[in-house]
């Protein structure tokens, strides 16, 4: 008999070691050294379900494509200001209903067609006609869009709306080619600095530099967006050189392994993601303002942030992030005071009541939920926690049916105060005073908009329409020599155009 079992083990083990050893040697040069091949790999969390944001919702699609593959007429810069993109300039008529845009004349789609005002009209009309996601409602205010000349576009609104121009910076404003919308889900066509390359489902999307781009051409000729469901796998990929950037850090408690390592830079800024402890304002217990205010005062927000998000993030006190022009620090509206909260609940007859805290299965919601529960129980409420699978189960139960008392979720859409606090949304917050303020802000000039929005933000904070736990931070970790990474993540896109390697 030739081989005994024990010998087979030894041989297999030796073979494995040899394979490990030799390939470790040959593979060590595969990491790109500075300037070698101008390619970049970015690790992100959520993979798009489709590439068509006109029919599929979800932040991952515009994150990859907007500003990179698609351009809008206008865009938002890092400080929140609306600046030119495909429109060089624009004017607003005195009645604030007619917008006239002057467009660039040298932009081309990646299918070869030139970009003209006819494409802009097509794209705007297409939102109303063909889009199916709820975001399309932002285009309802447009009465007509007209191509005056190839570089001049006139848009007439049915009523003055500051919000409309702002929404044009989001995916709603993306410009599509009249001859390039057949395969949006798999083959997007835009005018951006990058063109769509390949999509390995479950793994990555590759974007190639658009060498015919009409603006400043980007530094990297190829950018790979790699998707990781598991935060630890994402961190390991950066530590082992598989990727160069972690686009959004999911587990801030794991940051220390990067801050203590001088191979990496950690960038911390703000986002539009208000983490809300939402109240179902249609439930009898929440009709009493004393109860809502007491809950806000019962929560020690500083301690909560330390416990459930490693102290990263910002306390805000209302639905406005610091990058919006009407931001004010409203954390002092409902300061932490357990004794006061206890007394208020007693007076309202709510002591001992049981509230259902129905949480989506997201890490921050789960950990913040525990803190909220324990703090509310200290002032005499009873809280039962339910975990609902996110997105599907949570969307149906909490968002659609409003079958909940309290929930925790980050509302990441920009300027979403009006969208979140109204009677039709799951907050069931019916407040004519607030609606009046929002309408005045939308119709007025810029100064009026700022002053009325300030009043609106204060109104919901004083009325305790919800509690604002904190604002999600923008946390990016990257190789030390990368430049052009955005400090704040306040737009829907992950801007690749300014990234470079020094």
């Amino acid at each position: 008999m030739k081989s005994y079992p024990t010998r087979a083990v030894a041989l297999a083990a030796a073979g494995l070691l040899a394979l490990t050893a030799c390939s470790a040697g040959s593979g060590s040069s595969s990491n790109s050294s500075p300037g070698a091949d101008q390619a970049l790999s970015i690790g992100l969390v959520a993979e798009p379900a489709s590439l068509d944001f006109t029919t599929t919702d979800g932040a991952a699609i515009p994150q990859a494509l907007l500003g990179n593959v698609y351009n809008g007429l206008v865009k938002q810069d890092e400080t929140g200001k609306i600046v030119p993109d495909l429109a060089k300039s624009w004017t607003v008529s005195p009645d604030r209903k007619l917008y006239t845009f002057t467009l660039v004349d040298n932009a081309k789609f990646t299918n070869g067609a030139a970009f003209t005002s006819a494409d802009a009209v097509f794209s705007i009309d297409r939102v109303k006609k063909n889009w199916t996601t709820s975001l399309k409602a932002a285009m309802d205010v447009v009465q007509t869009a007209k191509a005056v000349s190839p570089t001049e576009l006139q848009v007439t609104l049915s009523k003055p709306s500051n919000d409309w121009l702002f929404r044009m910076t989001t995916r709603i404003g993306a410009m599509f080619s009249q001859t390039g919308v057949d395969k949006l889900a798999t083959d997007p066509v835009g005018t951006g600095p990058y063109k769509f390359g390949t999509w390995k489902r479950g793994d990555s999307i590759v974007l190639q530099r658009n060498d015919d781009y009409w603006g400043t051409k980007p530094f990297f000729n190829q950018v790979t967006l790699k998707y990781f469901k598991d935060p630890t796998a994402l961190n390991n990929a950066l530590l082992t050189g598989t990727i160069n950037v972690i686009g959004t850090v999911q587990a801030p408690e794991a940051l220390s392994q990067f801050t203590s390592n001088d191979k990496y830079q950690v960038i911390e800024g703000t986002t539009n993601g208000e983490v809300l402890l939402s109240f179902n304002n249609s439930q009898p217990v929440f009709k009493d303002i004393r109860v809502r205010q007491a809950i806000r005062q019962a929560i020690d927000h500083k301690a909560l942030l330390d416990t459930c998000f490693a102290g990263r993030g910002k306390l805000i006190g209302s639905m406005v992030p610091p990058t919006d022009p009407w931001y004010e620090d409203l954390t002092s509206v409902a300061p932490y005071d357990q004794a006061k909260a206890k007394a208020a609940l007693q007076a309202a007859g709510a002591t001992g009541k049981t509230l259902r805290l129905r949480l989506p299965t997201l890490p921050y919601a789960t950990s913040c939920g525990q803190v909220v529960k324990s703090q509310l129980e200290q002032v005499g409420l009873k809280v039962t926690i339910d975990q609902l699978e996110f997105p599907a189960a949570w969307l149906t139960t909490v968002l659609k049916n409003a079958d909940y008392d309290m929930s925790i979720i980050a509302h990441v859409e920009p300027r979403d105060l009006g969208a979140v606090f109204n009677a039709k949304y799951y907050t069931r917050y019916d407040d004519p005073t607030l609606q009046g303020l929002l309408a005045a802000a939308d119709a007025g000039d810029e100064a009026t908009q700022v002053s009325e929005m300030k009043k609106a933000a204060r109104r919901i904070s004083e009325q305790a329409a919800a509690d604002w736990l904190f604002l999600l931070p923008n946390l990016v970790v990257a190789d030390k020599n990368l430049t052009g990474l955005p400090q704040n993540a306040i737009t829907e896109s992950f801007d690749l155009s300014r990234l470079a390697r020094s």
Partner: protein
Amino acid sequence: MVLRLIERTAVLLVSLAVSSVLVFAFMAVLPGDPARVALGVNASDEAVAELRRQFGLDRSLSTQYFDWLGGLLQGDFGTSYVSKAAIGPQIFDRFQVTLWLVVVAMVVALVIAAPAGTVMAARHRRLSGLALSALSQVGVAVPAFLAGILLIMLFAVKLGWLPANGWTPPAEDPGMFLRQLILPALSLGLVQGAVLTRYVRSAVLDVLREDYLRTARAKGLRPFPALWRHGLRNAAVPVVTVLGLQLATLLIGAVVVERVFVIPGLGSLLLDGVSNRDLLLVQDVVMVLVIAVLVVNFLVDLLYVALDPRLRVGSR
């Protein structure tokens, strides 16, 4: 023999039919509306209803079932609700990835279990056998994903010998393919190997107590050659049974390991499908897994017959 084949085939077909009904029924009662997930947080009820119509979710359940089954029989898996891409090619691509992982893990498990189990059995009263036995108990207790995380920490992050995660098709870069396959295959294979070792040990122990082996030893063969020549085939029957069951465990275990190692296999396709409520995709993937498991069990049944001539004489 022929009777047995017919009987087994009939059982296979009935199982497939029943499981297709079960899979379909589970999807139908799963909470969460695919149209609402696709349209997001602010969607109007009219828009959701329209999309449900496009997805064909407004048809009666029996129509949906028979349309789906009819498609499957013709090899048409349908089109994904979410990505609008054909599902068949996606499953085919992903299944290849998972198959590599499972087969290599199985080989790892066998390479560990066959010799280790035999040694444990042959030396079951001695220190070396006991030590191996204790070690395999530890292996049985460790879940594959934990083994994966530990292997990554040691070999990828600390030592830097192997990539922490990722997947490269073998045709694209064979070297990278092997390097990326080692850790996930080990984490699945080590754990399954430990389980299998226990079965090999008891199978070999049974064989060691048989008269024919005592006879072989009495003829002058030393312990291991005796076992090799006369015992292995006999010990193989129970081990093959377990192997078949384990293949099913490996397919399911791969779902978790694929997540840890960021491998675009069938498991990650399934998880993505579930969270996007891409129900048709989920239904297809689960059905493919069920088919795979049933077919493996069918083949194992046939393999018994090949291994054990006594089963060929049809007393049943």
